Every structure is written in C-alpha cells, then in structure tokens.
C-alpha cells in the first residue's frame, strides 16, 4: 500500500517557489531519508504531508486522503520538529498523559522507559528545557505515539552525539518491533544512512533522486589521477564534483555507468577509482557549482590578480 503519493506538488510563497513540482510515492513501512540542503524545501514538503500547510497546486494523498486539515491523517500521523509547540502550562509528565489520550497506539511503557533513560524530570516544563533536551523529549513523543506515519523533521537538532546515537538505535529497534512508515530528514546523512531504506533527495524544490540507499552507494564513482587522462574519460559525462590536487592531478565524481571493462581500463591507465560515500555524493549533487566553496575563494583571488 502506498502511504504517501504526491503528484506535482508545489508551494508558492509570494513569488518564490518553495516546492516546484514534487512527484514521488512512498510505500508502507519504509524508512525514508529526506535529504537536501538548507532551503531545498524539505520542511515545507513534510509539513504539507503532515497536513499543516496547504499545497498551492498538485495532488497530495496521505493514506489516500488529502492531508490538509484532515482528522484521519492527523490521528494516524505524528510530526516532530524542533519548533514543536507544546502547552506551556503542562509539565512533561502531563504532556505524555495527554498524548496517551490522543494516540490510539501510544506505548506508555516505552515512553516512561525512555523518559527515565534520558533522565528527564516529570515536573519540568517543555519551554524550560535546553535545545537538546527538547529534541529528546519530542523524539520520545514521536516514537511512543507509534503512528502509522511518523515524520521526524531534523529531530536531532541540539542533541549531543551520544543522544543522537541512542535515538537512531531506539528508532531502529522500535521500527523492527512495530514496522511503520517513517520519514526522517537530517543533515547528518552519514549517521542515518544505515537506518534508511530509501533516500529522497530534494534540490531546488524538486525530487532529484529517489532510490534505495544501497543503490545510492554505487550510484557514483570517484576518479583521481592526471588531469588530461581524467578529462579524456569523463568528457561525455556530467561531472558532479571536481577538485584539483596539486598542479596536474584532479579528482572528479561522475555517475557510475561504466562497464566492468571500462573500469578495468581506467585502472590500467593509471587512474585511481574510489567509491563515493552517500553523504558526500548528496552534498555534491546538491551543490550549485562544481567546485563548491573553493570556487568562491578562487574567483576572488583571480579577480584580484587580473
């Protein structure tokens, strides 16, 4: 069953397109990572799916229903982000009690165990928590609700490495025990890629890539060696990233559609072949220019001397 279907979803703020025709489908009980640079439209897209924003045009279906202002979607979905507003007059324990009343599948034993493990105090108020503690508490809400669709938008903001690690682990364990559809957006792809089944890469308000993580790892390849030689091999290809190493050497990242034969020849011709990690690849794919920040600096230098 498809939990989320989106056809040409757009969202316009004034004249800027935050989303520019997003089309994808997400199957039931998959963990999908939503990856993209700041301002790519991840949060807007997730909020439309959560029914908090209304799409400007296009067709969005969650559990086969329009999500905006929809009670069924609201009851079966939980949206966790770092801007979560919880009632200021209730303390943490009371908030958990309220959540238990609202969510059918609420797992109070998990909630209490996590609550104790992360040493939150029941009498504290959400607004007084530190950034990391807030995120931790929100995460407990998100996991314990056991909603068929669980959306985490940047859930690890402010968490230290230890808590992040614990969070990923408990999320995976709980997912294995109670499979459900999880959307997880994060800047730390290297930390979450082992959890994810699929990756949805958003760039400039569009879906750039949507494929299993395993495929993404082999999707691109890095070549390094003499400049002329490399240019020869990649002249018909789209170069995602390039970086000069010393005077004559070059490192490039291109799509891996070489045949085994070609790869052998590349190695024989004296070039080194490297796998490209998914997080590096995602960074290269979403970069505006090939050379990255180096270009900015080099351009300033060349302007000065010209």
């Amino acid at each position, binding site marked *: 069953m498809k939990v989320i279907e989106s056809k040409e979803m757009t969202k316009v703020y004034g004249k800027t397109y935050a989303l520019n025709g997003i089309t994808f489908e997400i199957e039931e009980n998959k963990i999908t990572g939503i990856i993209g640079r700041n301002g790519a439209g991840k949060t807007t897209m997730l909020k439309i799916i959560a029914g908090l924003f209304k799409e400007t045009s296009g067709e969005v279906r969650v559990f086969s229903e329009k999500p905006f202002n929809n009670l069924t979607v609201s009851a079966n979905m939980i949206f966790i982000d770092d801007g979560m507003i*919880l009632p200021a007059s209730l303390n943490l324990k009371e908030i958990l009690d309220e959540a238990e009343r609202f969510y059918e599948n609420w797992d109070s034993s998990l909630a209490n165990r996590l609550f104790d493990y992360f040493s939150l105090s029941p009498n504290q108020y959400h607004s007084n928590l530190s950034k990391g503690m807030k995120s931790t508490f929100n995460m407990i809400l998100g996991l314990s609700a056991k909603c068929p669709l669980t959306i985490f938008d940047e859930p690890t903001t402010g968490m230290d490495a230890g808590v992040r690690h614990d969070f990923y682990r408990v999320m995976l364990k709980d997912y294995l025990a109670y499979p459900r559809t999880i959307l997880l957006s994060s800047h730390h792809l290297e930390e979450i890629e082992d959890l994810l089944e699929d990756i949805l890469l958003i760039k400039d308000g569009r879906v750039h890539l949507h494929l299993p993580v395993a495929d993404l790892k082999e999707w691109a390849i890095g070549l390094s060696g003499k400049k002329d030689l490399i240019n020869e091999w990649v002249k018909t290809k789209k170069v995602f990233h390039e970086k000069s190493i010393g005077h004559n050497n070059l490192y490039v990242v291109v799509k891996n559609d070489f045949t085994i034969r070609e790869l052998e020849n590349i190695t024989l011709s004296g070039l080194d072949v490297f796998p490209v990690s998914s997080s590096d690849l995602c960074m290269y794919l979403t970069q505006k220019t090939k050379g990255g920040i180096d270009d900015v600096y080099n351009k300033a230098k060349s302007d000065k001397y010209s």
Partner: protein
Amino acid sequence: MSITKPSLTNIVKKQYSYKLRAYRQVYNSLIALQLLAIFFSFNGVGSMSGNWGGIHLNINYYSADIIIIFTMLWGLNSAALITTKAYRFDDFAFVTNRLSGNMANLYVMLTLSVIGGLTSILSGVLLKLLIYYSTDVQIFNDTRLMSEPNLFVTSILSASMYVFLFCVLGYMIGMLFQVNKMILVALAALFIWGLFKDVSGGSNVMVNVFTFFVSESSLFLFFIKMMFCSILLFSISLVISNRMEVRQ
C-alpha cells in the same frame, strides 16, 4: 500498521478535556479579577440618604454587577487569548483539525462562562457576607438563595450568558486579529463612531446596543437574543479560521 478512523465527536471530547487542563491559568486570572471586583464593590453600586423625622437613613445598594462585568471582560480576554498562535499551535501537538479545534473551544468557552457566571453570583453572596460581618450595615433583601431559589438560578444563568456572549465576541475579535492586525483599529473606530453617532430619541448607537442586551424584561426573549448573537459571532469566527493555515 492499520489506520484508525477517528470520529469527530470523540476527538472533540478529548480536545475539550485537554484544553480545560491546558488552559488552567485562566482560572487564576478569574479569581484575581473577582477578588478585585469584590473590593471595588465594597462601597456599593449606588446609595441614597435622607432624613425622615429625625431619623437619618443611608441606603447603599450592593450587587454583583461589577463582579459580573469584570467576569465578562475576563471571558472576552480569555477567549481572545486562545485564538493566539501559541494556543492554536498547542492543538496541533496532538490530533486535531480546524473544525474539531473550534468545536472544542466552543465547549471550553461554554464551560468557562458557566464557571464565570456561577462564581460571580456567588461572589456577590460573599460580598454581602463580608459586608455583614465587617460593618454594622443592616442588610435587607439579601441573596435570594433561600427565599427564591429559582431567581437565584436565573441570575446565574443570565450572568453565564453575558459572559458567554463576551467569550464568543472575544473569540471572533481574536480570530480577526490573527488574520489582520489592523482589525483592532477598525473595531476601536467602530466603537467610537457608535458612541458619537446619534440616533433618534437622543441616545447613540452604543446605548441602543447596550439597551438591546440589558433591558430585556422577558427571560425567554433574552435567551433567544443571547443565543442568536452568540451563534452569529461564533459562525463568523469559524469562517475566519477557515482562511488560516493550520500551523507554521
């Protein structure tokens, strides 16, 4: 994992009880305001005095009027408060849609009005008790709790209705304000216009509005008026809230 189909009534019920707990600070302001109002009422709302055959008589009128007016303003303020972003977003921490949120707010306002109406009338009783014990005033025609219980109940009901009317008014103003901040200026302008716009008979528009609500001798007509106006105001609020995005 299977999908649950929630029923609107069920969600509204849950939201209602959640809101009564989450909005607990409004009770504190109610208590503070009513104490203040009791203090202001201590000198009576009206008085007359005279000499009759060597007897000096000083008559003071004590009533819960000031307390009820304060409670009405409290209702207006509390209802406007729950339309602000912080409170609206509280809904979206849990299961909700706009209709269920508004319905729950309506029930919350009804509950607050009954609490406000009941406590303001009882504060009136407290006021008289305080006067009885603290001064040597002789009280006549005191609270009708014992002698005329149905009148006592009626006064609670009508006080509650006044508070409720102000609640839905505050709710609508709050909603309008969320859409456009200039609305307060427009409302103030309307109010001032109403004060100075003379109508036939030597009064002005505001006085007529006031009379419309206050000087109704028929209890039945009064209820009808109140219900009609409250429903009208709340419907406007519903329409306005449908123009808003759910949560930022």
